[in-house]
Each structure stands twice: as structure tokens, then as C-alpha cells.
């Protein structure tokens, strides 16, 4: 019981929460603005992880310095997919359920292709590197440098994005598009440009999150799926398209996960995650924290 109250679990939950919140934010932006269900979202983390890995092992450069390049690569992938797969769908005036269903299938394809391309290129063997793994002690709590860095960067990204969403006309345009697509067009928002920026931002942030994860955990071509599931759990808990609800839900899921695993065993982690997923869908599909979009 004593260990449950220790700062160690709290720190672990905060680090994981920051990552979940960041990952889910990207998924939420893409879903909220375009109703695209990105089931390949976790694979973007995987790409980011490999980016950081090669950045560090080939150049010896800090993977943190590589993050902007990684973000640019995954954002570029988002832009390419937008033009190749989704732009036509979105402007065709198809009903939303059809766009959601199509996007799910298309992203499933993207996920399979991405995983296999990476596995072919770099083999399926898990990889890891050691960076900033010195342990710092704060009272009873031991923290590795890379986890502290991951938390700090995740929080910085979250705050920056929240500021943009709340304080700029462009951020307000994103929120407006999420709330009511028709009304967004009526007030004169350039919907196409907001969509493109949202997918670039959402994908870019997922790449950064992957880089952060790779500093502390091993990476493999198939590491993405649990993150996909976690981020879907988070955005459903937070209310689909509800950006701020998703951030809170990210931390909530991380706390549930970390403390529940501490009470049981690490083997329970996946069961827990899928269990929460199913439970939320059955009990409260509109999210714990309410809706963001108007019907």
C-alpha cells in the first residue's frame, strides 16, 4: 500500500499521461476536423521512434534535436495521405458515417503497409538505445533523465497547442470546424487549409511522441497498435473531437493504467487497456467528459 502512495508511481503516471494526451490530441484533431478514424496513428509513433533511433545511432546527435525533423517527416506523410487518399472523399459531400468507415479501411491499409515496410527495411527485431538514462533522485523518487525530458517536452507541446487553439484566429478556426463543419464554411473559414494543417499537426505531434517513447522503451515495427488503442480509448473517454476533454482523459487513462498494473501485474496491461476500451464503448460511448460536436 505504501508503494502506491509513493511519488514513483505518480511520476510514471504523469510521464505516460503526457504522452497519451499528446498522442490523443493528434488523433482528435484529425478526427474532429475531418472525421477520419486514423487506425494507423500508433504507427506514426513507431516511425518517430525509428527516426530518433537512427538519428542517435548514426549521427550520435541527441534524438531531442532530431524531433523537429521527425515531426516534419510524419507531418509530410500526413499531407501526402491527405492529397492521395482523403481530399477527394472529403469534398465529395459523402455522408459522415461513410467517410468514417472508408477512412478506417484506408488507414488500416496504411498501417499494414507501414509496419511491413519498416520491418523489411530495419528487420522486425526490437531495438533500443541509451540516451539520458542517468538516474536522478528527488526525495524517494528515482527518475531517469529521458523520462523527465519526455514529460517536459510533452507538456510544452500540449501547452503550445492549447495556446494556439485558444488565442489565435487559426486555432479558433480549427475549433469551429470541429464543432460545425457547415457553419465553419458559412463564416468563411478556408476549410481545406484548416484540414491540411490539422492532419500535419496531428501527424507531426505523433512523430514527436514516438521519438520521446523511444528514449525510454524499445522500439519495433509493431509497437504502434497498443498506442492506437490507447489513443482511441482516450479520445472516446474525452468525448470525440473534444480536444480539452482528450487531454484530461489522457492523464486519466495513464493513472488508471499505472496504478492498476501496480496493484496487479504487468501482464494485466493489455487486458486492462482493451477492457477499458470495451467498457467505455458500452457504458458511455459519448465520452466521460461530454461531446464537442453538434449533430
Amino acid at each position: 500500500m505504501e508503494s502506491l502512495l509513493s511519488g514513483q508511481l505518480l511520476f510514471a503516471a504523469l510521464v505516460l499521461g503526457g504522452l497519451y494526451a499528446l498522442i490523443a490530441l493528434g488523433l482528435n484533431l484529425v478526427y474532429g476536423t475531418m472525421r477520419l478514424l486514423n487506425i494507423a496513428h500508433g504507427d506514426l509513433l513507431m516511425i518517430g521512434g525509428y527516426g530518433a533511433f537512427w538519428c542517435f545511432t548514426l549521427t550520435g546527435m541527441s534524438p531531442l534535436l532530431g524531433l523537429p525533423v521527425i515531426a516534419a517527416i510524419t507531418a509530410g506523410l500526413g499531407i501526402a495521405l491527405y492529397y492521395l487518399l482523403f481530399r477527394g472523399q472529403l469534398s465529395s459531400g459523402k455522408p459522415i458515417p461513410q467517410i468514417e468507415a472508408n477512412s478506417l479501411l484506408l488507414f488500416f491499409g496504411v498501417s499494414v503497409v507501414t509496419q511491413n515496410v519498416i520491418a523489411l527495411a530495419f528487420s522486425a527485431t526490437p531495438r533500443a538505445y541509451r540516451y539520458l538514462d542517468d538516474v536522478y533522485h528527488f526525495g524517494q523518487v528515482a527518475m531517469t533523465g529521458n523520462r523527465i525530458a519526455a514529460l517536459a517536452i510533452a507538456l510544452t507541446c500540449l501547452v503550445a497547442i492549447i495556446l494556439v487553439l485558444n488565442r489565435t484566429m487559426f486555432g479558433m478556426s480549427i475549433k469551429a470546424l470541429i464543432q460545425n463543419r457547415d457553419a465553419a464554411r458559412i463564416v468563411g473559414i478556408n476549410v481545406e487549409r484548416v484540414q491540411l494543417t490539422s492532419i500535419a499537426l496531428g501527424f507531426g505531434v505523433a512523430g514527436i511522441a514516438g521519438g520521446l517513447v523511444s528514449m525510454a522503451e524499445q522500439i519495433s515495427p509493431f509497437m504502434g497498435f497498443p498506442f492506437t488503442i490507447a489513443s482511441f480509448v482516450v479520445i472516446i473517454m474525452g468525448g470525440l473531437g473534444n480536444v480539452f476533454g482528450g487531454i484530461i482523459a489522457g492523464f486519466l487513462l495513464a493513472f488508471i493504467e499505472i496504478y492498476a498494473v501496480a496493484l496487479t501485474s504487468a501482464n494485466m496491461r493489455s487486458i486492462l487497456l482493451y477492457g477499458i476500451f470495451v467498457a467505455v464503448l458500452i457504458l458511455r460511448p459519448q465520452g466521460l467528459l461530454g461531446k464537442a460536436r453538434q449533430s
Partner: protein
Amino acid sequence: MTPSLLVTDLTACYGEVQVLKGVSLTARSQGVTAVIGSNGAGKSTLMRRLAGLLPPTGGQITFEGQDISTLASHDLVARGVVLVPEGRLIFSDMTVFENLTIGAVNPRARADRDNTLETVFDFFPRLKERRSQLGGTLSGGEQQMLALGRGLMANPKLLLLDEPTLGLAPGIAKQIFQIIPGLVKLGLSVILAEQDVHKTLAIADYVYVLENGTIGAEGLSADLQNDQRIKDAYLGA
């Protein structure tokens, strides 16, 4: 009369279904041009097509002498063609102030935002009182004021008003109608889609009657008031 908007042989479809079957009309500059017609005649379809919300299928739209037939909605707003839609479509989870701010998203309106906001608050003092309230918590009449105010924030030259008093109590409906001449005085041109013929004839300069996606009759308000056919069809016994 100088035309603000010139529409020639305009069509509009939802999928396979053609709703507008060749509509031609002229909106006068700094005047109120009305489109009346019963439910389902195609008024909203016409307004949405003019606002760039429906894909172009045929016909021509000229605004201030330039062809705008195929422009996207945000380009039309930027040029000053602004829709206040049927059903209002305000952002329910944004405050009144945020709704108005986002109304000025186009570059031409952005620079002048604070002045325009004052004008809007002069027209609708109620919105000033409720500026921090969420749009969704306003009454129907207040939501209509917000939709109008949001439209004005875009700094429009041509305002497309689609049934602005639909579902409102008579008192508030009257209030909304009384604002329209004030907008014209500001220099705006207005196209008003309405079902209520009496009220429309009272404020419109020129009226088109839309029937099944085509213009069935047209004329100066004063002339239509005495037209036997209009009387029979719309004004009741």
C-alpha cells in the same frame, strides 16, 4: 438600378436530384431583393448555392461584374457575399463573443473587427449583455440575432438572409425584420428568402416568386401587391 449580383440560368442538385432548374435573378445594389416561395420551393437551395456551399452544376453568378460561379465559400465570404443560414447554425459551444469573432475570420473583415463589433452591438444590445454566454444557451430570437451579428462581422456587401424569422415569436420576428432596412442604410445589399408574403412585400424593393425550382413570377413589390395571381396563390382570400 445597379445590380449587385446577377444570376443566370442557375441550377443546383443534391446528388441526382435537381432542385434548381434554371433560376435567373438580379439583386439590386443597396436594396432588398426578396425570393418568396412555399416550403420546399428551393429557397434555401438557392441561398446555399449562392454562398458556395453546393457544388456548381450549371449557370452563372456575377458579383460586382466578376464571375464567381465556381468560387469556394471562403472566397465568396472574402469578397463580401455572406449567408445568414436558415436554422442559424451558430457555434453552440462557443461564447457569443467567440461566435462574433470567428465571423470576422476573412482577411477583409479582420482588420476592422473592433469597429464592426461596436456596430453589431449597436444593432443588438442584447448580444453585448450576453457576450460571455455560450451560443447554445441563448433563446431562439437571441440565436438569430447572433447569426445576423456573425454575418455582419464578416463585413458583407451582399447579405443572404434565409428565413431569418422562422420559428420565432411574432414580437421578435418583427424586431428582426425592422433591422433589415437599417442594414441597407449601411450600404448593404440584401437577398431575403421568405415564406411570409405580407411581411416581405412591406420591406422588399423587388420580389421573385420561386416555385419548384424556377422563377414563376417577379415584379416590384408595389406591383405584386396588386397582382391577382399572387393574391390568389399567396395572400389568401
